[in-house]
């Protein structure tokens, strides 16, 4: 019996990227029907922004305008981190549970493609979250004081860090039994990671135990870096540390996730 297998389009070498792009489109299409996680990625940071602004604005910085210049960059980082921290891991977990992953794994595509596709879609989601937050920040009076390139750099750093951090949740999503567990882990990790940082106030002003944590929390470096770039001040070592942390998270968790996902029992 002869069978005609579909002809390949484009070079084999790029197949994984092409398949990932197809799966990223799938993920985005699902988002448009079920925008909850993305909305959450914008609404949660926006709420924190407004809340902190009116709660801490005067006491911390004297005026809300000055405080917004301090606060907004951290909110941006929160937005980029949150959009992916929760959605990627739980989406992958759902696919594993309801058999979609079985179908993908029985197709002649790389086992990296579904993970990479999901994370690629996330990058787009972070970018949207970051853009919307920039708009909200501007409405509230935030002004970029660095150059255009610095501002793009800040957005880029926030998105890059979100991308690398999302591999942690992807790994968790592959390991745990239910999507609810992914959400729970994401939520528990959210508080110390995003709030136990330089988000609301410089870490020198934090109580000792919190300061010790915020000092080692990589999110602090990302927020410091974005803050410096957006306010046109010297970022000192924070940009380098952000890049280093991003690379480290990616280098550890991407292979772990890919291996756990591709493993046959």
């Amino acid at each position, binding site marked *: *019996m002869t*069978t*005609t*297998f*579909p*002809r*390949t*389009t*484009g070079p084999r070498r790029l*197949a994984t990227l*092409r*398949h990932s792009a*197809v*799966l990223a*489109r*799938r993920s985005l*299409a*699902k988002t448009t*029907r*079920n925008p909850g996680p993305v909305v959450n990625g914008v609404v949660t940071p926006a709420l924190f922004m407004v809340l902190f602004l009116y709660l801490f604005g005067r006491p911390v910085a004297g005026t809300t305008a000055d405080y917004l210049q301090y606060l907004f960059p951290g909110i941006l980082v929160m937005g980029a981190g949150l959009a992916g921290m929760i959605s990627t891991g739980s989406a992958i977990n759902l696919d594993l549970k*309801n*058999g*979609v992953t*079985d*179908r*993908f*794994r*029985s*197709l*002649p*595509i790389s086992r990296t*493609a579904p993970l990479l596709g999901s994370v690629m879609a996330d990058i787009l989601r972070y970018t949207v979250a970051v853009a919307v937050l920039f708009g909200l920040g501007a409405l509230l009076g935030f002004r970029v004081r660095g150059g255009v390139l610095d501002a793009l750099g800040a957005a880029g750093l926030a998105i890059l860090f979100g991308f690398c951090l999302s591999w942690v949740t992807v790994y968790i999503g592959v390991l745990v039994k239910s999507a609810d567990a992914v959400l729970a882990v994401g939520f528990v990790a959210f508080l110390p990671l995003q709030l136990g940082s330089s988000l609301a106030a410089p870490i020198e002003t934090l109580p000792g135990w919190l300061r010790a944590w915020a000092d080692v929390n990589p999110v602090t470096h990302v927020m410091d870096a974005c803050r410096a770039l957006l306010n046109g001040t010297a970022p000192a070592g924070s940009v380098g540390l952000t890049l280093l942390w991003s690379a480290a998270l990616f280098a550890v968790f991407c292979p772990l996730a890919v291996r756990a996902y591709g493993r*046959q*029992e």
Partner: protein
Amino acid sequence: MDDNGFEVNELIKRFGRTTAVGGVTLAAPRGRVLGLLGPNGAGKTTVVRVLATLLRPDAGEVRVAGIDVRRDPGRARRRIALSGQHTSVDDELSGRSNLVMIGRLLDLGRRDARRRADELLSRFGLDDAADRPVATYSGGMRRRLDLAAALVGRPEVVFLDEPSVGLDPGGREELWQMIRGLARDGVTVLLTTQYLEEADALADEITVLDHGRVIASGTPADLKREVGGHTIALRPADAADLDRAAAIVARVTGREPDRSRRHGLVAPVAGDAEFFEITARLHGSGIDVGELAFRLPSLDEVFLSLTGAPATDTEEAA
């Protein structure tokens, strides 16, 4: 060229201390349908997942389309397709997008993927629903779409794991026709089921699995010879007619019916001619029928006669 669509030799698969499959051998010639029949927990899904390259066997030889799936899973995946126990189409997407996506993943160009999707949508009677989100589909439509998704790449071997679970009789009948269509197109099919009736309706050969082992195999005719063929089950509307009804059944079938069940009687019949004869005579004698069935032995009855013990675990699939 290998003549088997797929074959499994002495397959062993353990999960921790559970031996899910303990030395199973089965094969289907190209273009045939093999029914894998067994109760819940028998190891059917495990066999399917090993064949579909989703699980690595602990021991044994596994080939699909002549390809050793342990040595060359990538090449095997180009020839097979899976429609799992739970349908795996995306609820949020339309039926068409689901199929186009699979086509794109199989490296079809945009236009070819659309054309293939259109072909399958009309073949599976889904044109009208093609652009609706799958969330709005009925169980039967979902299953048909899942089957269509499996066929996008024109696989030579298709694994169907309990495809009719959750379908109403109409949906099941439609599904059966699609599966028969596959076999006509020369596709080799492995179909798992908990119902002898389904295996009988679709399979060229049946393998019966229990506790991870093959306890019987053969054509449906062989198997029915072994476990008994059709039976008639009858309950007169008026219990007072029971003796007269039993006498009619005894006269037609040549042996006394089993009257151990409450209010009714059960007897083996040699084909539908005897069945019709009985119904005609009942009618002729003015006996009103309360319940009447012409059926194959249930899985329980199959197991009872094959093993002397009832099927181990027949609760609803999880």
